[in-house]
């Protein structure tokens, strides 16, 4: 199977609709991500941000809609997409080391039965170094701080050597060092022509960290470049008026999130 990367859009999801027990979580949402951008998905709690990522990844089956990656169905292109789940989605008391977790990123390329060997482990070591965690390779994962655990997850995605990185709240509850490391990493990825889509909560940093944004509240409110889309008016639409003049562009940048 030849994986294509030539089409214009890295991710093109159309008309995604998904409901839990009659309650719509995503309603007719389009997600268009050009190649080589850093895109934030922004919206209030319960807006369906995580659901959108999981639907794109095929972890949830939408009632309607389809997902294309570089112009072809996700299932055919899955090797081009790496996933960084929320840190809290796993049990960190699992008996293993940081290096072993990162090595899991190579499993997709190994196929059935084959075990990771020297080359997989050295790739994993290199990825750990890329996130500044080389000294923690043999550390039991429960002994890592939250920020270090997040970096281990990022390293696991790096090992996948994908074109697209989907991250669920990579900045959640991390220390300043890790936040810096992640921002640097995102820029490196962009410089290499990779595409990043991240669920993001901190409205203050959207403008600094990302160049595209999708505003989501069950429906897609707006999407596009941060300059055009991240406006006070759009944020009010997204957060239902509960946001008092925050970091949006247009009416000047303000500083307070009252929601």
């Amino acid at each position, binding site marked *: 199977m030849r994986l294509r990367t030539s089409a214009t859009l890295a991710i093109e999801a159309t008309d995604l609709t998904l409901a839990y027990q009659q309650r719509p979580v995503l309603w007719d949402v389009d997600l268009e991500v050009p190649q080589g951008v850093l895109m934030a998905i922004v919206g209030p709690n319960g807006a369906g941000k995580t659901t959108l990522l999981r639907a794109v990844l095929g972890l949830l089956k939408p009632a309607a809609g389809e997902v294309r990656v570089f112009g072809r169905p996700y299932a055919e292109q899955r090797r081009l997409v790496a996933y960084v789940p929320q840190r809290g989605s796993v049990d960190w008391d699992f008996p293993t080391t940081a290096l072993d977790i990162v090595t899991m990123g190579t*499993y997709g390329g190994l196929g059935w039965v084959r075990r990771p060997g020297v080359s997989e482990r050295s790739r994993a070591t290199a990825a750990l170094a890329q996130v500044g965690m080389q000294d923690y390779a043999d550390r039991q994962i429960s002994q890592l701080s939250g920020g270090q655990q997040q970096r281990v997850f990022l390293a696991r995605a790096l090992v996948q050597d994908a074109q697209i990185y989907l991250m669920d709240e990579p900045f959640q509850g991390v220390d300043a060092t890790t936040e810096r490391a992640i921002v640097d990493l995102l820029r490196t990825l962009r410089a290499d022509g990779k595409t990043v889509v991240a669920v993001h909560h901190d409205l203050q940093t959207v403008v600094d960290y990302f160049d595209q944004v999708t505003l989501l509240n069950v429906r897609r409110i707006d999407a596009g470049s941060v300059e055009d889309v991240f406006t006070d008016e759009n944020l009010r639409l997204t957060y239902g008026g509960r946001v008092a003049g925050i970091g949006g562009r247009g009416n000047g940048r303000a500083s307070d999130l009252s929601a």
Partner: protein
Amino acid sequence: MDVLSDLVFDYTLRTVALGSAALGIVSGALGAFAVLRRQALLGDAMSHAALPGVALAFLITGSRAPLVLMIGAALTGWLAAVAIVGVVRASRVKTDTAMALMLSVFFGAGLVVLTFIQRQPAAGKAGLDKFLFGQAAAMLESDVITMASVGAVGLLGVLVLWKEFKLLSFDPDFAATLGMPTRRLDVLLTSLLVIAIVVGLKTVGVVLMSAMVVAPGAAARQWTNRLGVMVTLSALLGAAAGVLGALVSTAAETSTGPTIVLVATAFVVASLLFAPARGLVWARLRGWRSQRLLALEAVMADLAALAAQHSTDATRPHDVAALHALRGRAIVESALSELAADGLAQRHVSGGWSLTPRGLAEADRLARLRRAPDDV
């Protein structure tokens, strides 16, 4: 030594030991995954649900061959697992409720069929009730061969799909994004757990078999932070509990299931208390030691503060009654005598206390250390 020589030369004992070792290895290894995947209660439900399978298999085939009964047990055990997942997915009933429900329904059905069989005049009926609490003494060589071969299938599955099962246990969503068929792997690993359960049913019994699934894994987790070591150790602990329990129950003519479970539980208790990194005893000792050090430090700081009020003579004796009131008499007195033993404090003829010059220097060093914690 008699028991040891019996173990080698006595046919019954040797059979019992081999069979129990086989069941312990299989349930220990697969149980480790069940523990990590929080499926301990699922194991309990499945083992109880195996009872109607045993009874029905006998009723339908009229055979008491171990393989026939095991297949029956596996089928209803597996069916219960499917029913639990199905109920949770289709309704708003929560997992624990669904498990409790299926456990009692299947177990109840098993008891009903069992009493029905008991009333039949058929000659072969005797012995099925042994499946409740298990019986090691009646184990035959053919039982052992069946247990070992069925168990080997389970172990082989874990070995072949090691990395798949590891990732499934740690992060099933990530496994799915890699293209692994997580639903099918989940069913497969649960089915292997069913195998581990039915292997031990006749020996340990349906009521307590879940302990053989959970206890070795829970104990092994305390000793290591590596999955491979944990699974291996869990298998070994399972084997040890199986053999010890079966031998004791055979010698003492007690029910095998409860005896094995008591041994396995002893392993868990010992591991919880004494495992090097996670043991509660060491944690308590560490806590106690650091508290004592803090008390020493505090008393030194107090004495240093008193000395600072009399800058002319730093080693002038002070009355420690104020310290008693502040920190408690026993704590202060034991701290003082320890400081004196280390040459850091001294008792004067007047009954008062002061730091020695060395104690003053040490107090000063500690005070600096506390003020400027190393910023890394």
